[in-house]
């Protein structure tokens, strides 16, 4: 069975709880952490590759805890023409994929760090961020 790629988002309240270990112990899942950005009292994000019989049960467990679970099948792109480089997205982006380069103050987008949370789509004032399916 090929691994399922998913993005998990944790609210600050649960980001310091032992959650992933339960997926291994209780649901017998094989987990490969592709990307992780988890800090106490902050929003956290994880990109995982999961294999096992009880994937759905594990996902159900995560959702019950308030973890947002999304399949990673989409990609975010930036319309360079539209972006005015205001920087308004850079303190919202949870993974630092959208960031300001200093001292030029230019706004950069590193798709490799993007976990497709789509917050930037909602808050970009000129709608420069798009989902590519």
């Amino acid at each position, binding site marked *: 069975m090929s691994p399922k790629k998913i993005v998990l988002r944790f609210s600050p309240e649960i980001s310091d709880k032992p959650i992933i270990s339960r997926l291994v112990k209780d649901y017998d899942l094989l987990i490969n952490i592709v990307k992780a950005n988890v800090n106490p009292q902050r929003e956290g994000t994880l990109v995982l590759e999961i294999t096992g019989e009880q994937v759905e049960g594990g996902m159900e467990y995560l959702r019950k805890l308030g973890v947002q679970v999304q399949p990673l099948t989409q990609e975010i792109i930036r319309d360079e023409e539209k972006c*005015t*480089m205001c920087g308004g997205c*850079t*303190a919202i982006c949870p993974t630092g994929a959208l960031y*300001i380069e200093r001292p*030029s*103050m230019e706004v950069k987008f590193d798709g490799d760090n993007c976990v497709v949370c789509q917050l930037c789509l909602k808050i970009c*004032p000129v709608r420069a961020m798009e989902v590519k399916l």
Partner: protein
Amino acid sequence: MEKSYAEINAKIKSGKAVVLSAEEFISLAEEKGISGAARTVDVVTTGTFAPMCSSGAFLNFGHSSPRMKMHRVWLNEVPAYAGVAAVDAYIGATEVPEDDPLNSQFPGEFRYGGGHVIEDLVAGKPIKMKATSYGTDCYPRKTLETTITLDEINEAFLFNPRNGYQNYNCAVNLGSKTIYTYMGMLKPNLGNAHYSTSGQLSPLLKDPHFKTIGIGTRIFLGGGIGYVAWNGTQHFPSIQKSPEGKDLGPAGGTLSVIGDLKQMSSKWLKGVSFAGYGASFAVGIGIPIPILNEEVALYAAATDRDLYAPIVDYSDAYPNRVPGNLGHVSYADLKTGKITVNGREVATAPMSSYPKAREIAAILKQWISDGGFQITEPVQPLASPADGICGKALKG
């Protein structure tokens, strides 16, 4: 050392004026000192590109046959104010279509508003126009549906009642839930801090006492030429002080600006949408500062380290008009990407584009260096901090 506007303009005309952007002038002043920099440089250019809600455009559509006294007007379904003469209207930047869901599904998206209409108009796109009226003997027509473009209408001029804010709050959220403001999305419990000026490049931060910027000043506006028409609404200039009495730079001044939309560019006039707040308009403004003397030079050389923004809580203090703030922070600190508020490290982000501000200052520098853009002595100065104007509260 004193230079007159006429002397500087003579140098601009002969192509001999020394023009630097505010960033370049700061470096020169650090190297040569204020006196040396003031002697060398004739004009310093500034720039800002940021959302400026108090913006809009007056349009005159020309008369149809038969004539119509337009009572209600919609442009791409966005209502324009038609309570002026027969075929005049004002399209305001924050107006949204009547069927916009607003915040009924919070946070609303506000995808298209008056600012977007102006951007599309300037880009040369056809705009769907609808008008209704009650009919009079001299203006019998009652309905009209047509398409207009910028070239086909008589006049279109931007007239923004409050632009170019001298300084602005650094917005934070002390509350426990995410809030959606005109300063963007603010995450709970000091999750982020948003600020919105171009700091050391920002026009009014470089002329705190309105020594050179006044009524009639010729400026870069939306990619074309514009003018300072008046003070902006809520023009309450002051000099901020720390509790110890340290000068924290100016705040509170605003400008009302005007200019012909037909020579502007949609690159510098952008409709913007703030989730949960509304539609607005990002405007590019650049103002030249003639270096008349050392005092003007000293202000123009102010750096991000000298200019401060007040930190304001938008969960309670701002909406409920609770006076005071959470302290001041320099633009130098804001630009590092993190500041400390109430003992906590907070990530910062601008809502005002510094790269675009730099580009505007460079374009204006080019215009002046090329001899095609002369500086203007104000017809009348604007109120300065010395006038001590304060905002009034609304009863009710």
